[in-house]
């Protein structure tokens, strides 16, 4: 790497992180001992990550297990949402009547905070874990439906005219024309859904308890252990970032256009 690209590529993010650390130090030194500084937090983080996969009974497990448990919930809820949401998006985008029928419903339900659905999930599924998965499902289904439907509607009319000339069946239209054309929109929906799901799981686990990074934060808050809360904030952020990067890689592999971060 030459000096020029060093200044252009590597330096700005380092400056950003440095700024964060500086602000953090200022805040922690003005707040007295309430907010621990970067150094103490780093030492505690080394302690926490020395053994991220220990198991000491069901109520005390390493931070690694907690992250995995949360990711598992996200995967199940998100997977179910994709199974339902993407086909639903296709149908809504393709059939005018259904789109007019369901749009008001979607507009009504989409802005509701997913956590408001948690008590309903608890009542219906009679279990905390299915209820948490249900909130993930409900929060990640909307972006997938909406983006897929929009994608279907934006398929250039020329493509559809060609299909009509060739007298293609509806199935053939879906697989050879719609799907490739809609894919970039769909993947945008998927990315939006995953980042929302990751936001929501932390909040949902705070309420339901059990193993998971959200309850880990709650438990540390119960002891007002601020150092571990800050560590958890970084862990949650980094996992979210990794999820995002993986999906961007996936999106670039499937589409011709450049995917914006």
């Amino acid at each position, binding site marked *: 790497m030459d000096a020029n690209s060093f200044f252009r590529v590597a330096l700005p993010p380092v400056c950003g992180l440095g700024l964060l650390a500086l602000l953090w130090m200022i805040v922690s030194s003005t707040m007295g001992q309430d907010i621990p500084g970067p150094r103490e937090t780093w030492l505690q983080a080394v302690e926490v990550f020395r053994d991220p996969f220990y198991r*000491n009974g069901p*109520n*005390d497990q390493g931070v690694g297990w907690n992250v995995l448990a949360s990711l598992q919930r996200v995967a199940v809820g998100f997977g179910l949402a994709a199974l339902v949401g993407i086909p639903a998006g296709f149908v809504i985008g393709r059939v005018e009547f259904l789109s007019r029928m369901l749009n008001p419903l979607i507009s009504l339900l989409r802005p509701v905070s997913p956590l408001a659905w948690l008590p309903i999930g608890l009542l219906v599924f009679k279990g*905390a874990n299915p209820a948490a998965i249900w909130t993930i499902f409900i929060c990640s289904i909307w972006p997938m439906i909406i983006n897929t439907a929009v994608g279907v509607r934006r398929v250039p009319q020329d493509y559809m005219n060609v299909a009509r000339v060739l007298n293609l069946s509806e199935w053939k239209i879906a697989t050879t024309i719609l799907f490739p054309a809609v894919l970039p929109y769909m993947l945008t929906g998927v990315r939006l859904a995953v980042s929302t799901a990751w936001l929501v799981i932390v909040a949902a686990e705070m*309420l339901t*308890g059990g193993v998971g990074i959200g309850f880990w934060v709650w438990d540390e*808050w*119960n*002891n007002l252990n601020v150092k571990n809360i800050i560590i958890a904030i970084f862990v949650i952020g980094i996992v979210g970032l990794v999820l995002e990067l993986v999906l961007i890689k996936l999106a670039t592999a499937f589409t011709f256009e450049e995917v914006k971060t």
Partner: protein
Amino acid sequence: MSSSTIQRRGFLSAAASAALGASGGVWAAGSDKPEKEEVRIGFIPLTDCASVVMASVLGLDKKYGVKIVPSKEASWAGVRDKLVNGELDMAHVLYGLIYGVHLGLGGPKKNMAVLMGLNHNGQAITLSKALARKGAVDGPSLAALMRKEKREYSFAGTFPTGTHAMWMHYWLAAAGIDPMNGARLVTVPPPQMVANMRVGNMDGFCVGEPWNQRAIMDDIGITANTTQEIWKDHPEKVLGTTADFVGKYPNTTRAVMMAVIEASRWIDANSSNKMKMAETISAKAYVNTSVDAISQRILGRYQNGSGKSWDDPDHMKFFNDGAVNFPYLSDGMWFLTQHKRWGLLKAHPDYLAVARQVNQVELYRSVASAMNVSVPKDEMRTSKLIDGVTWDGKDPAKYADSFKIKA
């Protein structure tokens, strides 16, 4: 479970009892065998979850043929939901919460059961340092300050029908403060109480230890009164479950009660056991706090955060020769009278009938006598509370209506 395993189990236990004779194990003989071996017991990280945790840690559960799995819960509302939907078999739970669910007050309605008391005493009313600096260090001085400086004062409990909300209400009213008028009572989790008190949003709260000690250690609040000063040897947490569970798994229920009673006896036996308990439950898996925050008040060493310290003989008790664990009907009825007093109940319930349904007095008697734990003769007890009013369980409706300050 498939039917073949049941048959094999039956065969094995029959073989075992045949081999061992009638005096086999403590529990294994014949029909006393627990129907369900693994029992999930929910707990909230507080000092008074100790007997449930110690029953599991000391292995007392295995002695009676069950395995207690303590499960840390996020909030009392979470405990309620998981008890109702069966995710938890039993819980370390607020006395009033069980009655609230039984009557369907502000939530799901399900027949519930109080198996035994887990502790007496050991909660406290904390007032903020800011109020203390203005001279409000107990009920009367708080009332004087609230008359002089009028604004909205915020106080907190941990669950609407729970014990802390009732102590908070009772304590305010005893000092002549109407909690329905001129004060705002909210339900918030303990850390939020502390955080809000730190920034001046919260004037007082009632909560279990170690939180009051913690407020003193963090220099944000003072202990105005301990709850044992409100009611000496007051009922607090209970071992609660659903009526369905007791009906379906009577032997399991008995076995768990025995293990928890034995753990309670062990904790109260001497101060070295208490220290061991404090070390165990302060771990990350349980209360997740420093040993100091627990050990001082558990031994009766109190300080109020503004210079006074004393030895309290009425510190948190887990056993007290069985007096703690007996599910007095009058204790259960008291929470109903307060629910009525503060408008959570719209009409007088049949106090005695409800208490008899919920509190498993007969079950407790048989368990306690099998363990040679002394059982009080009377199902009622008489106590004089902080305002000088005596509660003996005799005329609950009259008692509930007798208070000047009520909803």
